[in-house]
């Protein structure tokens, strides 16, 4: 403890969360990996997949301009989202369809397998890099630009990019493997996360908003692997937290007219931990509930937590049931920024946003958003009944929009 000149101990009171001031300082020099990729291409070492037009340029953490494509995107799904939160990819596709954007949902895609790698280390850099390049090259062969749904894939692919640029031996190993697979060695000019697309689309989405969200308070949990792992090409914007924090997720929430409430543990991880969520769930649960959700509840009392990665969504949502039994202050619905944006534009809460897969009761929130969830559920059940009875095999996009 420090002491004032009269010898009395100085008590330092930290500023209240709401009074925090954010101010962006200078931009550190960073290497330009994009230039390096083009240099490798000029030497004939690989092929760079160009960001297709139309694209929007945005600023990254240290001031570089990043191109975000609007369409012609190849949707690299996440190994986790489709199991627990199918409304997350579905909402991404739904929004693309609403804007009439050309996109491709491939079957010739594996996950980045980074979840397994971070959980178990039963892989190695040549394999991880080859998996990345195989997916990217497949996108290129299909004539589309890779568009990453998952925060971890986004971060891991950037680690891979770093290794491919800096380690000629690894590059050579990947090339030999691609040759064996009869695939080209293609790498995208930018690695783009869906939240970045949502960010650049935020005003266009807000224009088509059908709900009044001004009485909805959200707190934001950004994915570690989005803004901490190879952070330099994550999007930052002077208008959001004065450029001191990534602007994705927060930006769309603000554009839609919701209130974003800050809390002191914004920077903390959700507690997912890769293998932990499956085999050490007490850890994931404790961290998510005590360190994240309770802090949000105490300091911001939000109606909703917005996240943008499958692991974070799962951990924050599913961890609340058991902790409630211990009288912890939990009970906040969790969804992705894209599900929230789709709801705002009038997407069906169950047929499109698939909210029935989520754990925390989100009905009070839906009521606050002006959504008749009882009617919506009856409509979903009607569709499900048709599938059950064999009248139809699947729900189509047309039925989801009806």
């Amino acid at each position, binding site marked *: 403890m420090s002491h004032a000149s009269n010898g009395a101990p100085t008590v330092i009171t930290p500023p209240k969360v709401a009074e925090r001031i954010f101010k962006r300082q200078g931009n550190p020099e960073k290497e330009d990996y994009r230039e390096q990729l083009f240099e490798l291409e000029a030497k004939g070492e690989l092929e760079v997949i160009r960001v297709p037009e139309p694209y929007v340029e945005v600023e990254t953490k240290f001031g570089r301009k990043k191109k975000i494509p609007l369409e012609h995107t190849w949707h690299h*799904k*996440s*190994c*986790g989202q*489709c*199991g*627990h939160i*199918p409304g997350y*990819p*579905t909402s991404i596709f*739904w929004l693309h369809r609403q804007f009439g954007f050309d996109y491709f*949902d491939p*079957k010739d*895609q*594996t*996950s980045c*397998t980074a*979840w*397994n*790698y971070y959980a*178990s*280390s*039963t*892989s*190695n850099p*040549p*394999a991880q890099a*080859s*998996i990345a390049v*195989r997916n990217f090259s*497949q996108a290129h062969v299909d004539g589309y630009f890779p568009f990453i749904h998952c925060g971890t894939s986004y*971060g891991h692919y950037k680690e891979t990019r770093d*290794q491919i640029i800096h380690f000629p031996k690894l590059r050579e190993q990947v090339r030999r493997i691609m040759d*064996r697979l009869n695939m080209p060695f293609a790498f995208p000019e930018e690695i783009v996360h869906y939240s970045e697309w949502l960010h650049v689309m935020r005003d266009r989405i807000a224009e088509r908003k059908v709900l009044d969200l001004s009485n909805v308070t959200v707190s934001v949990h950004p994915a*570690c692997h989005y803004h*901490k*792992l190879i952070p330099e090409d994550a999007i930052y914007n002077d208008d959001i937290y004065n450029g001191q924090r990534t602007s994705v997720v927060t930006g769309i929430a603000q554009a839609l007219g919701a209130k974003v409430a800050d809390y002191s543990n914004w*920077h903390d991880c959700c*507690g*997912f*931990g*890769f*293998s932990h969520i499956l085999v050490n769930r007490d850890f994931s*649960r*404790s*961290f998510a509930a005590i360190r994240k959700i309770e802090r949000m509840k105490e300091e911001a009392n939000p109606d909703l937590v917005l996240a943008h990665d499958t692991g974070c969504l799962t951990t924050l949502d*599913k961890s609340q*049931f*058991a902790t409630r039994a211990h009288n912890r202050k939990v009970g906040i619905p969790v969804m992705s920024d894209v599900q929230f944006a789709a709801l705002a534009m009038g997407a069906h809460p169950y*047929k*499109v946003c*698939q909210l029935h*897969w989520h*754990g925390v009761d989100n009905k009070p929130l839906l009521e606050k958003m002006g959504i008749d969830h009882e009617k919506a559920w009856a409509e979903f059940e009607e*569709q*499900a009944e048709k*599938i059950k009875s064999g009248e139809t*095999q*699947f*729900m189509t996009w047309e039925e989801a929009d009806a």
Partner: protein
Amino acid sequence: MSIYRDAKYADVAPAEKLRLFNEVKADFRWHHVLYGCYECGICTASCPSARFYDFSPRVFAQIMAREDIDSFYELLNDVMWSCSQCFSCTRCPRHNSPGGIITIMREVAVNNGLDSAKEALKAYSRIIYKVMSTGTQVAPDMLQPDFFPDWGPDVKRVSENLDVWRRAIPPDTLHTTELAWDVSDKTRLQLYMIFKLTGNLEMIENIDEGIYMILEEVMESLMDEKDLDIDDFENILEGEEEAEH
């Protein structure tokens, strides 16, 4: 001498500890994950695992920078698997990545078939099988109430309605229950070939022979079906590794 008062593994030969330590240091990423350590503790302050386990990223940076092989061996065999690999510790002012140090250490533990790695991954094998044979990890049919009782009654509701609810998702690729999304056979095989060509299957064999055998059997019969020559896909990186050592 280990920094730990209750030092374990005194019976393990220093040469063995050094061998494993040198394997970590020989990794091509080594010089990008550790530049020295201020001992400031910023990494530990942001570390989720440090909150709930007897675990500190700072200790990893310090021990590795000091080349303290006894303490290294303890980290390798005890707390290493507590790391969440969130990389919150990359806010290190020295540009270290304690999480990255741990990634390399874990790979060394797996490659050497250490008991600690086998133990840490025991409950995880099924996932390894799923991801290595399909490239998708969390399949909807894993949502079973007996496996996730702490996730509440909704898990039961989902599992009871799984088939119908999956077919009531509009994108075609999501109608599966055994996979996160529909992956073509061609892609599954390419993934398997990558694992074979890069020596990943041997890593699995080191950790869990049972899973390795099932994986080989399932994937090789798929290769057979597609008229692909299995022997044609042996680890192509192996020769060069051997030549280097």
